[in-house]
């Protein structure tokens, strides 16, 4: 590898690419060339840095300068000032929202301070399309160690000892899963990587595949070695073109190096991977549904047992793990189970990646030790609530999870605590809501998703979620009754109790948890007929404040249904019966005379 004095790491994740990071990389290279610095500075396109809020990101090492929201036009200045003259471009540095000071080194940013990166260790650090960079960071050393120094059982024991649990949502102990699959005899077995990430608002799997595809390939090979499988399949969303491309490149490089294929590292172990595309069905995150989808069938789940470890893909023992789970594996083997289990809480070891989104200052991907509190995540790493609003709730676990409130802020996050609080880890989506968010609407949003994504196989999920959604709609449109809320509770409980697969068994969680934690808000909707957050259109009451109204008639002219009347230069009035709550008058009024309740 050539020696450069300076590396310019440009984020090539989907988010930053959407903001022209490719052009930025191109411009940087161009400018370097213009100034004849080709032998000194190198531009590297990496995976996601996580700090998507401030993307596109350009990080310069060795001095660890972290430039945010870089535009293609900024490249010239970065090269001529920073690279050539060593002067940082202050205006592109991150500004601490509280102190308003520019922070140059990402190490000193609140966003990164509490993070420990294991699964994301290479994201934003290496060029994911260059296997050499991965190998330089001890890549494939874990596989080599497993193949040459350890028996499959020893590897499984290490994983078991590390306490690693499935990161896809369920939290099943990974080592135990491998052991079961290893114990079932068959002529062919399969290792499947579940990359059909579907939680709306979660993108950690995509980021790992885009930023560090080799770690997944390496871990799948290790798993194959453990359970006795020679074939690996990555089931990946077709909507992730970049991740697919990077995986393909990585696999090709592995084959060229002999890290996939026959007799890997002279150990006699054969392994290779192929890709299968998920075609847009959230339920395929459920492993039996995923397997059917891989077989070219409708992605419907089947009753377990039999578990995939007994009879999975093509009826053969199959081990399915999620991307993030796999990403932890090489690190565990290299650094040891003790190291891994020293991080985290008693029953949840290691770290967890969360996709922080919603009404929060620092939207992005973060990795924190299990046991970090919600407060630390939201207020320290996340930088608090956007626009200085008040925190209201945080939704974890996507459509399967629930909403947590202020009283949960100091709960250490781990699998069991979240379940105890009525939510769940899920794949790690974390959506922050502020005072403007109506919790009934939020529940409705999730149910709409579940209704869309239900496979339709079992009655409780197929019809029950539809009915939940209809009832929430009724409440949001101001026609609900307190009995409806009670019925929601019963119906939700029955769906949880009777649905066939994980999707249906958790789909009522957003409703049940919001009813539990925000009962008053539901009550306000059905008894007082108001939406405290002012989100539910039908429950808004528009009135004109007579003291502010100048009688300019802008509102009455904008009203599509003629609900506003009044004389010129006299205060106007809104006929609440005619009003369709479109908000047109509100937008038009220059005198803030329209009052919304």
């Amino acid at each position: 590898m050539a020696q450069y004095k300076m590396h310019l790491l440009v984020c090539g994740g989907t988010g930053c690419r959407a903001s022209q990071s490719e052009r930025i990389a191109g411009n940087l290279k161009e400018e370097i060339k213009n100034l004849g610095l080709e032998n000194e500075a190198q531009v590297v396109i990496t995976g996601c840095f996580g700090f998507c809020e401030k993307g596109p990101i350009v990080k310069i090492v060795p001095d660890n300068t972290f430039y945010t929201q870089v535009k293609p036009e900024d490249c010239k200045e970065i090269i001529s000032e920073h690279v050539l003259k060593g002067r940082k471009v202050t205006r592109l540095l991150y500004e601490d929202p509280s102190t308003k000071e520019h922070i140059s080194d990402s190490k000193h940013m609140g966003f990164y301070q509490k993070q420990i990166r294991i699964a994301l260790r290479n994201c934003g650090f290496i060029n994911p399309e260059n296997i050499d960079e991965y190998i330089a960071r001890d890549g494939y050393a874990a596989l080599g160690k497993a193949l040459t120094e350890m028996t499959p059982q020893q590897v499984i024991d290490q994983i078991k000892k590390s306490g690693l649990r499935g990161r896809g949502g369920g939290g099943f102990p990974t080592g135990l899963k491998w052991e079961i699959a290893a114990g079932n005899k068959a002529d062919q077995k399969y290792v499947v990587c579940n990359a059909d990430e579907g939680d709306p608002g979660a993108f950690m799997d995509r980021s790992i595949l885009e930023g560090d595809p080799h770690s997944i390939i390496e871990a799948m090979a290790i798993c194959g070695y453990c359970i006795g499988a020679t074939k690996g399949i990555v089931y990946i969303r077709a909507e992730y073109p970049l991740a697919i491309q990077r995986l393909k490149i990585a696999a090709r490089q592995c084959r060229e190096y002999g890290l996939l294929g026959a007799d890997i590292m002279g150990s006699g172990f054969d392994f290779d991977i192929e890709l299968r595309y998920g075609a847009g069905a959230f339920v395929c995150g459920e492993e039996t549904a995923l397997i059917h989808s891989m077989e070219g069938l409708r992605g419907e789940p089947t009753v377990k047992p039999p578990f995939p470890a007994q009879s999975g893909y093509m009826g053969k023992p199959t081990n399915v793990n999620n991307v993030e789970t796999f990403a932890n594996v090489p690190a565990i083997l290299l650094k040891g189970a003790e190291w891994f289990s020293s991080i985290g809480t008693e029953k949840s070891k290691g770290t967890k990646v969360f996709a922080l989104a919603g009404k929060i200052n620092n939207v992005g991907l973060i990795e924190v030790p299990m046991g970090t509190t919600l407060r630390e995540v939201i207020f320290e790493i996340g930088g608090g609530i956007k626009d200085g609003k008040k925190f209201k709730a945080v939704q974890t676990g996507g459509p399967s999870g629930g909403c947590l409130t202020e009283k949960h802020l100091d709960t250490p996050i781990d699998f069991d605590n979240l379940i105890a609080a009525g939510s769940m880890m899920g794949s790690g989506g974390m959506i922050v809501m502020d005072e403007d968010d109506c919790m009934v609407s939020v529940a409705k949003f999730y149910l709409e998703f579940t209704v869309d994504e239900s496979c339709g196989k079992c009655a409780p999920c197929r019809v029950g979620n539809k009915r939940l959604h209809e009832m929430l709609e009724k409440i949001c449109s101001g026609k609900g009754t307190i009995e409806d809320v009670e019925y929601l509770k019963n119906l939700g409980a029955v769906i949880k109790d009777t649905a066939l697969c994980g999707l249906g068994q958790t789909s009522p969680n957003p409703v049940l948890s919001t009813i539990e934690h925000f009962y008053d808000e539901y009550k306000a909707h059905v008894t007082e007929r108001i939406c405290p957050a002012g989100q539910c259109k039908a429950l808004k009451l528009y009135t004109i404040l007579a003291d502010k109204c100048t009688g300019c008639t802008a509102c009455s002219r904008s009203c599509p249904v003629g609900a506003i009347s009044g004389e010129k230069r006299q205060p106007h009035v809104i006929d609440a019966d005619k009003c369709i709550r479109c908000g047109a008058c509100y937008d038009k009024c220059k005198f803030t005379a329209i009052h919304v309740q």
Partner: protein
Amino acid sequence: MFNNVFSVMEKIKITIDKKEIEVAKGTTIYQAAKDNGIHIPTLCYLNLDHLKIENRPGGCRVCVVEVEGRKNLAPSCSTECTNGMVVKTHTVRVLNARKTVLELILSDHPKDCLICSSSGQCDLQKLSQTLGIREIHAVENAAVSTYRKDVSPALKRDMDKCIMCRRCETICNTVQTVGALSAINRGFMSVVAPAFEQDLIDSPCTFCGQCVAVCPTGALTPFDDTGRVIRALSDPTKTVIVQTAPAVRAALGEEFGMEPGTLVTGKMVAALRTLGFDKVFDTDFAADLTIMEEGTELLGRISKFLEGDKNVKLPILTSCCPAWVNFFENNYQDMLDVPSTARSPQQMFGSIAKNYYTQLLGIKREDLVVVSVMPCLAKKYECQREEFKTNGNPDVDFSISTRELASLIKAANIDFNALEDDDYDSPLGESTGAAVIFGATGGVIEAAVRTAYELFTKKKLEKIDFTELRGLEGIRTASIDFNGTMINIGIAHQLGNARKLLDGIRAGLYNFHAIEIMACPGGCIGGAGQPLHHGNSDVIKARFDAIYREDAGKKIRKSHENPYIVKLYEEYLGHPLSEKAHHLLHTHYFEKNKN
């Protein structure tokens, strides 16, 4: 070895509803409960154990039970018992869940029970009654899933009534391998339907109707021809005659509360006469005729084969079953010259009636209405095929099912159970035991063997019962000694088994001389026009046994000994496979290409 036997026998103890019971390892909670008199309701689960047909999607969630130590309720149909398991099938939690789930299903189901063609037969209706559903919690104007309706000659689809039990899908794909139906769409709009929700007539559907036979609601129902029959009966210008298929007599009694397997031949004839049919004839007569034609065709092919003729097509395949004909026309275009060209008994009867019997009566064919009572829905399609019409007038005008006949009898205020036995009319009402067994799988080939043996060997059969050809196994094979020449016979019922045999023949794996194929499980006795078995295959077994009882009781048990058949050839047809016989009793097959 001993170990294996022992492990199969391994027993475990469980407690269901405070009752301690012992079950074999591997038993499901549902089965264990059922074996001990606890009937857990279900809508999707179907187990026809005599026929090895199972549908277990675990989708309706009605059979859920409480299992101690388990977080959520367990579907009893697909949860195996484990040692020491404690199961409760009717706690408040279970009953609430079961009722709520049923309410959900009903909330997306039309409520026209009063006028639904499955009313009184509907498993969903019955369960709603059992659980005492009196109201359905849902918002006003709650969404319902609606779909394109489809009426084919044999059956009707009203998928608004589908509850996604997937029984039809399993039957159509796994059992029959027809592939006309599949689950389509997703979530609330998911339903079982042909591709693109097209009409069945444009799909590869064979009209076997087995989907109808297992549908727990009114989503899939037979096409109803009773109105047309009543109109014909009341038309003074028409002579209306009826033929009854062999399997009908073994099942019709069930519609009147009789034990499955009760033979009601005499009562049925009496009822038909009371209904006003001018003549009551028996399809069995035509079955004997079929044996004469098909048996002769078989012997011809075998003789040529034994003489070394390389062009002869063997094995010969039976062609009585209209669903089977539809199946091979669509799937085995390369083998269309393999099946016997003999028409089915229904069509032979129609042809003889419209051509020969009209002569006897001296009336025009347009003035004779031939009605058939069949255990079958595909017969409705068959009698409308163009090749069985003369100048647009069909040989068989209407084909009604066993269940339709029952409803006609009920509507005519006939006390079926009190009827005196009556006899068929002559000449088309006389038949042999060989014809009766057409109703069960293996029966056609056994009847053919009885005749072919005597014609081939010129010897009298010592033992008429070929028990080696009987049974409910899906595929059976036997070799019959024709006085030193071994004749290899294959038998399959259910089209999936037929496909296995046919694919084997196509690949050159077998050397059968003759193969009998029936589309429905158990043969015609399990036909889709029969009284519904509601998932209990004991019913089919009982009909099966009844058919052979009827045969054993017949004086004449070989088709070629039927005196009226002999007479028909003497007076009218000449000899089997004569030109006239060819014209009236044989057919040809068409290439269809539906997928």
